[in-house]
């Protein structure tokens, strides 16, 4: 142990004299980890946004076989039947707490480009059963008027979406009368209006989906199962019943999987480059210290402490690079808001999230690169015959 500490300490003390070559490892690994963490923080942020959307105590009913709300359509007769299903919460007046919602694509500008934005027609129950939705500014839309309330993220992401602004879609003018927050979930990227107004404006009498509050008689999972069983048992219902939260979780999967694949691919390529950089640096470090290492071995130090000292140097440089990369990714990306196409082909705004597990993953890559980059030079340091190494051969 004394040997290991002494040789490692000597090695680290000699680092300043080799700072330029050492910088190659630090910078190379900082880039790898920075890119990895930045890319994955995008996936993580998107996942957080969609997974944070919805509630386990609400059920979403879509036409059978569709995977997204936008491609679902339920006609008015079916909507009426669905509202009356057992297991759906009733309000004080005995009316079912369900909202037949119409989701349509509208176009808004973002950075000069036309982008798809979701316009959701909601019924009054759709507002009361979503306690997470909170009108932050202005007022609620009035039924019959072409008025919308805009999600907070939509106001940040799309041009001209401000309180009092007039938006034009389908050749009609809509006024933004309010701004709402919904805890940063996917709805914040939407515009909301009255459901009947949307139906008449877009000529679609039915609904994209029916959102219903499950009654609290059983745990949410059991209530949902009972509702699913009821619908399945009745051939009139050509609908799928999903837990609202599960639906949004599922929606995030495709995009996050793609981001994960792309980030792993890019990181792997960069990591290969960084391993070669580390190998080159550590071979230079071993060559620069060849006489010192040979002298220690001549004195009687064994190969193990020498090998450990080279690995410690390589891993230390790698971890410094990893921390710099993760720190840079945090400073540059954490909280950065952007938008991408969700499964509904509408823009979903989300914030990059640099989380501790991403930093850990980045540092694990750094550690692996450091170990791999130091291993072969460490072997070289102890395999070279002492007499030859002393001659500087």
């Amino acid at each position: 142990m004394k040997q290991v500490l002494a040789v490692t300490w000597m090695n680290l003390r000699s680092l300043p004299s080799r700072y330029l070559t050492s910088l190659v490892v630090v910078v190379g690994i900082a880039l790898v980890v920075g890119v990895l963490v930045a890319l994955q923080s995008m996936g993580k942020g998107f996942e957080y946004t969609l997974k944070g959307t919805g509630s386990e105590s609400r059920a979403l009913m879509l036409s059978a076989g569709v995977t997204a709300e936008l491609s679902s359509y339920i006609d008015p007769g079916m909507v009426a039947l669905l509202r009356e299903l057992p297991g759906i919460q009733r309000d004080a007046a005995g009316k079912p707490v369900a909202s037949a919602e119409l989701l349509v694509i509208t176009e808004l500008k973002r950075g000069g480009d036309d982008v798809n934005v979701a316009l959701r027609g909601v019924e009054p129950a759709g507002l009361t059963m979503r306690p997470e939705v909170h009108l932050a500014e202005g007022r609620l839309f009035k039924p019959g008027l072409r008025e919308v309330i805009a999600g907070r993220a939509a106001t940040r992401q799309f041009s001209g979406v401000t309180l009092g602004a007039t938006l034009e879609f389908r050749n009609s003018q809509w006024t933004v009368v309010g701004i709402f927050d919904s805890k940063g979930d996917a709805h914040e990227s939407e515009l909301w209006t009255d459901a009947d107004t949307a139906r008449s404006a877009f000529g679609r009498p039915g609904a994209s989906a029916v959102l219903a509050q499950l009654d609290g008689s059983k745990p949410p999972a059991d209530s949902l199962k009972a509702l699913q069983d009821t619908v399945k048992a009745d051939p009139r219902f050509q609908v799928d019943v999903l837990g609202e939260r599960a639906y949004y979780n599922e929606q995030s999967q495709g995009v996050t999987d793609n981001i994960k694949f792309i980030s792993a691919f890019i990181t792997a390529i960069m990591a290969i480059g960084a391993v070669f950089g580390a190998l080159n640096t550590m071979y230079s470090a071993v060559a620069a210290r060849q006489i010192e290492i040979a002298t220690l071995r001549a004195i009687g130090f064994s190969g193990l402490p020498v090998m450990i000292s080279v690995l410690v140097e390589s891993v230390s440089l790698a971890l410094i690079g990893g921390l710099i990369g993760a720190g840079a990714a945090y400073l540059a990306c954490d909280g950065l808001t952007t938008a991408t196409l969700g499964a509904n082909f509408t823009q979903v705004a989300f914030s990059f999230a640099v989380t501790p597990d991403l930093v850990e993953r980045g540092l694990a890559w750094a550690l692996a690169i450091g170990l791999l980059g130091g291993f072969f030079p460490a072997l070289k340091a102890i395999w070279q015959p002492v007499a030859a190494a002393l001659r500087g051969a």
Partner: protein
Amino acid sequence: MSAIVSLSNVVKSYTRGKQTVEVLHHLSIEIAQGDFVALMGPSGSGKTTLLNLIGGLDRPSSGEVKVAGERIDQLSSGQLAKWRARHVGFVFQFYNLMPMLSAERNVELPLLLTSLSSAQRKKNVQAALTVVGLAERAKHKPAELSGGQAQRVAIARALVADPTLLVCDEPTGDLDRSTADEILHLLQVLNKDHGKTIVMVTHDPKAAEYASHQLHLDKGQLVEGDVKAAA
């Protein structure tokens, strides 16, 4: 006096590409305990190779190398490293001090391989630096020392663990005449007053005069010398 170093019928050859070059040809010598031997000869004569065999830095291709009664030609690399730590102190032409360590930390290095306590190590380091006359430069780093002082620190490092043998490879090759004389005088004192057995490679006939005996090599063979050449 009994032989502390004994080489019997030693051959050392190297392979360069497809060629095998024999550097030492069936060499047999003995060096007595307490002796101070200068190994001399032209470049390529095999003197450093011989020194490396005696110091356990290399192994012969064939033959027997015995130091302090132990056959070292058959030890593994790890065993040789442990053996060197116990028995050999090395002095190199370019001192080979660790530039980032102070003189006392350099001298302490061989003691890190022993079970001595920190206090005991410090005491031994101080004693070794006193022997070479550099106690007051203990805290200085190699870059702050002259060539002669650096070589003294290297000698202190070679001495500090009280080895059986001091092995010196051109110890004055990098020094001016007067500093070289000081270093050679120091080696002589270590030999005469402290009883250290010293084997020194040198090109310099004046340096060799400080030794008790000289041994001349040419083309891997002993050509003349007053050290006993074994039959």
